[in-house]
């Protein structure tokens, strides 16, 4: 990491976890500021303009999702939401409200650092080549509307292509079922019933993945949504 180290704001009310996170991040070269409440977080965001926010959803004085909404009104600072397991609803709500990624407690240090790096990297302008995305042997040419795996052209239906394209436009980011459905089938589509999306995804997988039991390109975030694999 060259130049100024990125600043990370950790919003977390547990003092011990805060301490551990601080240790992990500082030892990896980040500058760390901390807040233990939503109020503290608000003032820290204003005064420090961090490069990334690590936001715990369970705060003593406000709902994390609410804080996220407020922040999103005026800034696009990347936010990684930290949530407890079994709280898919919160995950979906925070992703739909503009969180860039989420990580589930408990997590290991390498996992956290990898997520932070990925989110920061995504924020940097991608060098040229906007009309094409590839990962591994999978390649999608947005201009020609062409999907190839290992050089072989994959025949997708109109809807299937639109789904793949939409997900590939946001590599690494988890897109919730509701978000994808609204984008593909319009704002009045029934987002409660994601059956149609699941069926299409199953067909897409059969076409592009070598082993649909171990997908390489389009990954499932169970109970939340789908994520396009990122370029290594």
């Amino acid at each position, binding site marked *: 990491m060259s130049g100024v180290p990125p600043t990370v704001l950790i919003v977390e009310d547990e003092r011990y976890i805060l301490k551990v996170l601080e240790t992990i991040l500082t030892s990896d070269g980040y500058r760390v500021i901390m807040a233990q409440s939503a109020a503290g977080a608000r003032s820290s965001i204003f005064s420090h303009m961090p490069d990334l926010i690590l936001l715990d959803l369970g705060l003593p004085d406000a709902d994390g999702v609410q804080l996220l909404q407020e922040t999103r009104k005026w800034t696009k600072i990347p936010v990684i939401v930290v949530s407890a397991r079994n709280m898919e609803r919160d995950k979906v709500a925070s992703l739909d409200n503009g969180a860039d990624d989420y990580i589930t407690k408990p997590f290991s240090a390498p996992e956290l650092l990898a997520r932070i790096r990925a989110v920061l990297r995504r924020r940097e302008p991608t060098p040229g080549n906007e009309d094409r995305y590839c990962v591994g042997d999978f390649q999608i040419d947005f201009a020609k509307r062409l999907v190839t795996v290992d050089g072989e052209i994959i025949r997708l239906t109109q809807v299937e292509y639109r789904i793949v394209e939409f997900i590939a436009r946001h590599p690494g980011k988890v897109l919730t079922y509701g978000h994808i459905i609204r984008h593909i089938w319009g704002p009045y589509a029934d987002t409660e019933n994601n059956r149609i999306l*699941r*069926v299409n*995804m*199953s067909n897409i997988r059969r076409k592009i993945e070598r082993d*649909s*039991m171990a997908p390489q390109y389009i990954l*499932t975030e169970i109970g939340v949504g789908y994520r396009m694999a990122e370029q290594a």
Partner: protein
Amino acid sequence: MKKRSRRRFLAGPYTVMLAALLAVLLFFLIQAIFHSAVYALLPLLFLILGFSVATESLFWRTAVSLLPLLLFFLLEQVWSRSETFSIGFIVYVFVLFGAASAMCGQVYWRMRHARDASWEQYLKEQSAANLNAQLLTASTMDELCALTMQSIYNITECPTVLFFPDEKGRLKRRRSHPEGLLLYSGEAAEACFRRGGPAGRGTAWCEKSALYCLPVQVDGKTLAVVGLLTGDAYPADPQPLQIAESLLLCFAVAMERLSAIEQAQKNLMEKELEHIRTDFLRSISHDLRTPLTGIIGACSALEQPGVSLNEDARRSLVNGIGQEAAWLLQMVENLLSVTRVGSCAPKLKISSEPVEEVLAEVLEKARSRYPSVRLQIRQPEELLLVPMDPNLIVQVLINLIDNASKYSPSPAVVELTVEERERDVQISVADFGKGMTEEELSSLFEPLLPRTGDSTHGMGLGLSICKSIIKAHGGSIEGKNRKPRGAVFTITLPKEERL
């Protein structure tokens, strides 16, 4: 009713013509036999009385009594050219016969109407009783609603729609007959719901509405609102509406009954879950203490001042802390699931999930947690969507794989098989290990109470969690030995969401 009786009799003009024809024949017959028309008067009276009941309308009835008489006297005048009857007598006969036939017809038709009405009443009561019985045997709310809507439609001949209040007290369309009829709740339905009485077309409340709304009430509490698209017909015939109202009473009672049954079932399930939870908590407190002892011990050894540990010993202590913590984590995840399927916790988040995605998740998790386990998956080719809470089902399968790996020699081979059946889907986890003893089989899904000197981390807990999760899905789980060796656990999940 009127239509039917009219169809059964001859139309008025035909009756009159027939009566007149018979009167003429009678005249000739009597004339031939007795050479005097006087004898024909009595049979003529009978003829007229007989025909006077044949038609319901007063006009034709009068015609039936008068026309044959008129013909008779005309013929008599023409035929005998004699003054057999005086004018006074003829007038007398006309009046007498007319009055007799009018009275006779009146009495007949009144009786007939009374009989028809009572028969109609009987039929209605019969069908209401039948319907009531059907309503009481309906096993789901949908069935009940559909039946009621159809019956009201049949009785009133008005398209019918049913509104239920949602959690916020706003009315939502639940069902209609004919199906697919898109009628939305309007002010009339809301007014009806609020005041607990009829509203809408033809009433003082929201009379401009297209719907005539009736409340569905039990003990003065309005449960739902039924709207009738009466069109301009209302209130031509209030009787069907009255029947519909009494039908709604039966509907309300049946609804109460259904919800009481549902409540009872829910109570039973909650009791069961409560039971599982208590057992679980009792046995887990012991199990949690063991790894914590290890962790605290290792920490104290690491930070002991003055004692220098070599690199290997230090690493093994840290490693131990990590492993114990990982085990604790799984235990806590299980605990979370139990609170989740419980009553006060957020309900299961059920959605239609592709089985292949769930299995892929299991595969990925199992790969990192049990690197030595070789998983073989067999599943149907076509996409299978099953309603479930995906995270909980993943957890069940992970628990079963964990179980299988513990009972199998390393490297363990575990087979995951998915089979689609008519009403449900079976997922089985099979191993090639040593199988289970009779004793283990008998108490497979009960939380194991801590046994002294038990060094393996509480195994039975995982299975009892699996059972409560699967039960909360409305499915079942069973475990048995298989030939020639190994054990197989099969979970069955219903394809249709059970409400």
